[in-house]
């Protein structure tokens, strides 16, 4: 978008490189192509959720329902796959995603509910529906074509990784280069000004929630195909993972700022941490500790690199630090 966001992207990339270099030294296996593809594969599901989440967060909203939406659309897809075949199943899964997104979007815009609580409630509803629909049992998937979405490779690259890259490219392009993308930034930056400027801010928001819902369904396909099973509780907790990826990637919860490239890097940072800890056989009790500390370090560097650089070149005074720390609030209107 502009220089500032470019810099923040690059910063996230630095973090990724830092973690990557440490792991390359610590584990001989880390920097092999199979392992890196594993990271991509493990990241793909949360990363897809993070794409929609980025749109929603740039709009100064949040979507906590993505994990549950993933689970619900996964079980619906799997059940229809058993009874009616591939295409109806895929269509039904996408329809669930659209419906969930529409409902979230309308609750936030028309019913004027804070997105945090609205999507927390839909998360609860969808989680319950998934269990109800399946009586709590996983739904096995034997369709060979469908499994391919998760298990095949194209030119040596796992299909989920390809899907992830295509989705990031397409939605990144939409965000950065289209009118709709500009409306997303403008509405998130200052919803009132956007409305008065003639932007249909409610539609912009509803569409973002729909994107989030559809990508949750797509993520559900991948996860189901990888496991050959749809689990009603499959997405539990993935919403926090996705949100963390978005924020680590430099998008501000206050809205108006962020890039999809940052989100991709954020998702990869999280994936690399998990992968690295498994490779190094870090004690499972300590994994949460390490993960938390690495996230803290990453975000700390991201937010303070300028200030730290300033310290070195002695350009910054107390006023600078204070004024930049208040920018997010200023921006909130």
């Amino acid at each position: 978008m502009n220089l500032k966001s470019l810099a923040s992207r690059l910063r996230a990339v630095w973090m990724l490189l830092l973690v990557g270099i440490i792991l390359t030294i610590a584990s001989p296996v880390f920097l092999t192509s199979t392992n890196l593809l594993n990271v991509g594969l493990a990241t793909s599901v949360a990363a897809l959720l993070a794409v929609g989440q980025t749109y929603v967060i740039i709009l100064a909203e949040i979507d906590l329902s993505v994990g549950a939406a993933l689970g619900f659309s996964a079980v619906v897809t799997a059940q229809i796959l058993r009874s009616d075949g591939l295409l109806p199943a895929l269509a039904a899964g996408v329809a669930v995603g659209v419906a969930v997104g529409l409902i979230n979007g309308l609750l936030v815009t028309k019913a004027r509910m804070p997105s945090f609580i609205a999507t927390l409630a839909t998360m609860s509803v969808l989680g319950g529906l998934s269990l109800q629909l399946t009586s709590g049992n996983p739904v096995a998937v034997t369709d060979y074509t469908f499994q391919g979405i998760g298990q095949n490779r194209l030119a040596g690259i796992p299909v989920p990784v390809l899907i992830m890259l295509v989705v990031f490219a397409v939605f990144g392009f939409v965000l950065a280069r289209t009118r709709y993308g500009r409306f997303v930034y403008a509405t998130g930056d200052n919803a009132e000004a956007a409305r008065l400027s003639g932007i249909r801010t409610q539609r912009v928001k509803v569409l973002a929630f729909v994107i989030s819902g559809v990508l949750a369904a797509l993520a559900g396909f991948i996860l189901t195909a990888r496991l050959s099973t749809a689990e009603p509780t499959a997405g539990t907790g993935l919403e926090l993972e996705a949100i963390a990826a978005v924020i680590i990637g430099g998008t501000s919860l206050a809205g108006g700022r962020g890039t999809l490239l940052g989100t991709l890097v954020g998702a990869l940072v999280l994936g690399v941490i998990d992968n690295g800890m498994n490779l190094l056989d870090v004690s499972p009790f300590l994994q949460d500790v390490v993960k938390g500390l690495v996230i803290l370090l990453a975000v700390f560097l991201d937010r303070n690199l300028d200030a730290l650089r300033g310290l070195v070149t002695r350009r910054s005074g107390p006023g600078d630090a204070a004024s930049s720390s208040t920018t997010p609030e200023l921006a909130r209107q």
Partner: protein
Amino acid sequence: SRGGGSTATGGKAASGKKDATMIMSTLNNPFFVSVKNGAQAQSAKQGLKLAVQNADNSDATALNLSTTAISKQVGVLILDPVSSQSATSAVNQANSSNIPVMAFDRKPSGGKLTCFVGYDAVEAGRNAADALAKSLDGKGKVAEIQGILGTNVAQDRSKGFEEEIAKYKGITVVAKQSAGFDRAKALNVMTNVLQAHSDIDGVYAANDEMAMGALSALKARNLAGKVELVGNDGISDALAAIASGQMAATNAESPYALGQKVSSLASDILAGKQVDTEETLHGKLITKDNVKEYAKYLVGLGDTADVPSSLR
């Protein structure tokens, strides 16, 4: 039956009450769902009005649910404790309200139980260790995939497994990672473990859900059936995997049978009959040799949901 010696009667059961509340530690797991199904099927047979509640793995929720059930004056309170220690409060409360209380799966560490019925989780870990060792002929490198850390089952199964596997000098545990009893997590964790230890010979997963996730990871590397995989529980997918030779064994603990047992004990208590105060159920090691037989046994119980269609 095989349990402890003493028996007890259900106190005020003669009041003619026909209802019971069963508080499950979780329902986000097919094992417990099947317990619930078994219990409900059996209650329907015996005319017992059974309410099932879900504590969602939270001690606090479990306690709150118990308190509510006790103030409703249910006929029998049935607990599936989230943890042994934390269930004591609920048992004490029920005791002081003269409500008969029974527990299954995990035994509360205090209070007076009318009866307890359950599988031995430490033993489950041991059995799995023995089965794994046997299929590896006592030597090789293995990985352990643990459940949700901090839960009783995960702790006990891990303890049993580790104690037992240590007895096999030829076997080394090269990786020990948690996948939170979750299939998708186990897939990622196992993929990474295979990356670090490509020469692995065997895997123990603390439940079959994770075993299935691990199996997906093995399949992706064409190692299914080559790396020995042992799980716990005996869910339908695991039975199918054993039948097809992709999995070595599982320590099956029929949840449906457990549920049935719980309901019939509750009915006995309400009817004022004598029941054993303690009944430990034992898991059954399922391998390719006996998987058909076990499937037949389950179908006989009425538990078709836990039998893969290929074995029905």
